[in-house]
């Protein structure tokens, strides 16, 4: 089992630099997602790890083995790294079995069958890539990458072309399969939901640098900065003023801060829409200091929930996710109630 250690790597194409002194550790057998917008450098990072791009400086290790440094360079064919590119990139001139067998020594037919079984494609070896659906092509691409039993597997936005429900199903299957094999996996994606749902840890990349590496829950609830906060999910940001230790005052009233949240006299506090709830004003007893009063400005209905925009009496507008058909009609008087702590961000 092999982890991957990237240290102080700068890389780019021609004279340009895409990655700047980037460092990242991936544990052995870990499933790490690299999350970034397009142009952030996440695919470049994947290429450096796979050996498809030689960095300008810095080192890359697989376990104890240096695979890239200023003096040493292991080409991709000797790294034992698997690659699942965007949309699969199956060899169109080979059959499904031919694709899977590409990285295997000759005459290993049973292995091909076993690998196809592993990805749920038993008996499809004779088909051509053009005859497969997008999801099936991805399955074959995974089997092909796993065939030579790589130590590390790199997944480059493999499901971006698939429809939403198929995407969810495939990533669950892949997660399970790779966990069973114990292969170290690095998934590059721009889809925060995908990164949060599949990975043990998520590394957020911006402008060629790692902004934060954390477990999904930590990343979501305690993002390192404002950019990350809004990149990994819908963010509600409120001006806050410290009133006492661990408590700030906002337009929604007093809010407790996450334990260990940095203490500052003033700043922005981050809440997630699901932390808020709306209660009809008439349901609250008169004079009760429960929630922040306001009136509904707009509502958009999404089936499983509605996004209700409330104009607070204290000034700002705020978006609240209301489950089910919860119908607060525009104009209605409501209270906005906060559940759970917030975090100060900058």
């Amino acid at each position, binding site marked *: 089992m092999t982890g991957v250690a990237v240290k102080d790597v700068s890389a780019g*194409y021609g004279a340009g630099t895409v990655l700047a002194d980037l460092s990242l550790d991936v544990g052995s057998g870990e499933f790490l997602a690299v999350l970034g917008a397009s142009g952030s450098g996440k695919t470049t990072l994947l*290429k450096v790890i*796979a*050996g*498809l791009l030689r960095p300008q400086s810095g080192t890359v290790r697989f376990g104890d083995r240096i695979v890239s440094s200023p003096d040493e360079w292991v*080409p*991709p*064919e*000797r*790294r034992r*790294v*698997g*690659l699942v*590119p*965007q*949309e*699969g*990139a*199956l*060899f*169109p*001139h080979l059959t499904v079995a031919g694709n899977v067998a*590409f*990285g295997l020594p000759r005459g290993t037919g049973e292995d091909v069958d076993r690998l196809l079984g592993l990805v749920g494609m038993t008996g499809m070896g004779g088909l051509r*890539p*053009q005859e497969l659906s*997008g999801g099936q*092509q991805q399955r074959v*691409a995974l089997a*092909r*990458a796993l*065939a*030579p039993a*790589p130590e590390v597997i*790199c997944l480059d936005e493999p499901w971006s*072309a698939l429809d939403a429900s198929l995407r969810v199903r495939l990533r669950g299957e892949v997660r399970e399969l790779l966990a069973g094999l114990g292969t170290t996996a690095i998934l590059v994606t721009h889809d925060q939901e995908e990164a949060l749902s599949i990975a043990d840890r998520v590394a957020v990349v911006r402008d060629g640098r790692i902004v934060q590496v954390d477990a999904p829950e930590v990343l979501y609830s305690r993002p390192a900065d404002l950019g990350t906060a809004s990149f990994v999910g819908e963010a509600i940001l409120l001006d806050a003023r410290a009133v006492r230790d661990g408590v700030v005052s906002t337009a929604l009233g007093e809010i407790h801060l996450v334990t260990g949240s940095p203490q500052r006299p003033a700043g922005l506090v981050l809440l997630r829409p699901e932390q808020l709830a709306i209660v009809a004003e008439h349901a609250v007893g008169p004079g009760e200091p429960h929630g922040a009063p306001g009136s509904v400005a707009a509502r958009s209905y999404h089936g499983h929930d509605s996004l209700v925009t409330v104009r607070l009496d204290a000034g700002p507008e705020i978006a609240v996710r209301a489950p089910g058909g919860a119908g607060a009609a525009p104009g209605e008087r409501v209270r906005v109630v906060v559940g759970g702590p917030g975090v100060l961000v900058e």
Partner: protein
Amino acid sequence: MTSRLSSRPPRALFGAAVAAALVALIPLVYLVVRVADAGLAQVLETLARPRTVETVGTSVALTLVVVAACLLLGLPTAWLLARARVWQRRGWLVLVALPLAIPSYVAAYAWIAIFPGMSGFWAAAFVLTLVSLPYVVVPVVAALRSADPSLEEVARTLGRGPRRAFVEATLPQAWPAAAAGSLLVALYVLSDFGAVSLFRVDAFTRVIYASYRASFDRTTAAVLALVLVALAAGLVLLERRVRGRSRRFRTSGAALRPAPDVALTGRGQVGALAWLGVLIGLAIVVPVASLLIRLAEGSRRPLDVGELARAAANSAGVSLIGAALAVALAVPVALLAARYRGARVSAVETAAYSGHALPGVVVGLSLVFLTINLFPAAYQTIATLAFAYAVLFLPKSIGATRSAVAAVPPILEQTARTLGRSAFGAWRSTTLRLAWPGAAAGGLLVLLTAMKELPATLMLRPTGLDTLATELWSRTEVAAYGAAAPYALALIALAAVPAWLMSTAMHRRGGSTQRAADDDEADAAVDMVAP
């Protein structure tokens, strides 16, 4: 996006397309009738003659040699231009397409003007290889450049070194392009009249022309012509199939990014430049220099500018009539093919494309028979010659028009209907309005190509009507090299236009992501320059 409608084509459109296709079939049908008239016994006797067998053998051998040479020279050239960081690559890309601009008889004449002793099979193979090399190089460059680089990357991670990754992952993507290009080369060689005649190689076209001139033996000419057509038709059908297959080869519209270029070492750079320099030197520089030298030397008879201008005007005039007729025939076929599918539609389209498989010498021969036997008044008239041009180059016109029509989404026409236009009014204000420049470009292409057509012109022109091609021909026949040079240079200038069009169309395709439209465009590019 679909540019095709599944419904049945309107009866009037289908009828017009069928009529156009039938007109295009006239030379082929009459040739068959003529051969059938001779009777089976005589046909078999002609086929069995040693001379016939020898002719088939010579033509097939010449074709195979040239195709092999084009692949051998073309594939490394294509790799250099597609994947290596060659100095001034864009410039080389334009240069390698240019030999298409040199008609084979002009190239042959230019070489003979330097080496008057050049003659025979290998001389013809040499010159035909130089002029038809772009048919392999240009599409293979495009295929290599549009191949998904992820394939090679995956191959690397699966244990292949850089060279094997290219051979096993990328090269297979270029095979269909190479195969289709080779078939075009074969078609070019098989139908070539000029080079084999000037080098005195007894290939089909030369033997057919000779038998026709010796007017007592016209059945032999007809039988040989039919064999030639059968071979050419086989090549055309194969080429279409291979081109179609190359399309199915693509799995998905993966985000198109170019493969990284290979940096060349100093020695590699020098070698690459030497390789390209020698190819271009032999294909373009030597012939053009030879013509310019001959032009500077002059001839015993000074250049008669009036005569040159008259020949150019004659070429342009007859070709213009031919081009107008070709566009008129092409429009219904192209509309049908761009908008509707089905067995009947492809039958009509295939029939209209028969010109692809008809070498000029065959169309000339058939129309000579037809006019002499059925319409003596039309024998060797401008009308017959223009008709021959229209049939021969109809595929170019259809190709250009079809891709122009296919680029217009039918929803525009349907929207115009909902805004109150009649069926015809909607068509006129949308499809016609947007597609006519493409159709006109196709017509221009026919015009330019017809101006250099040699054998059909020799056989069908009215007595006394001299064109650029026939003037060049008559001067080279009497070894008046200096006097022929201005005509040869004028022909090269004319032919440069379609070659340039093809090279830009191919480049646009290389960088674009709109594949469906591109396929039509690439098809049109191939139709433009197909021999």
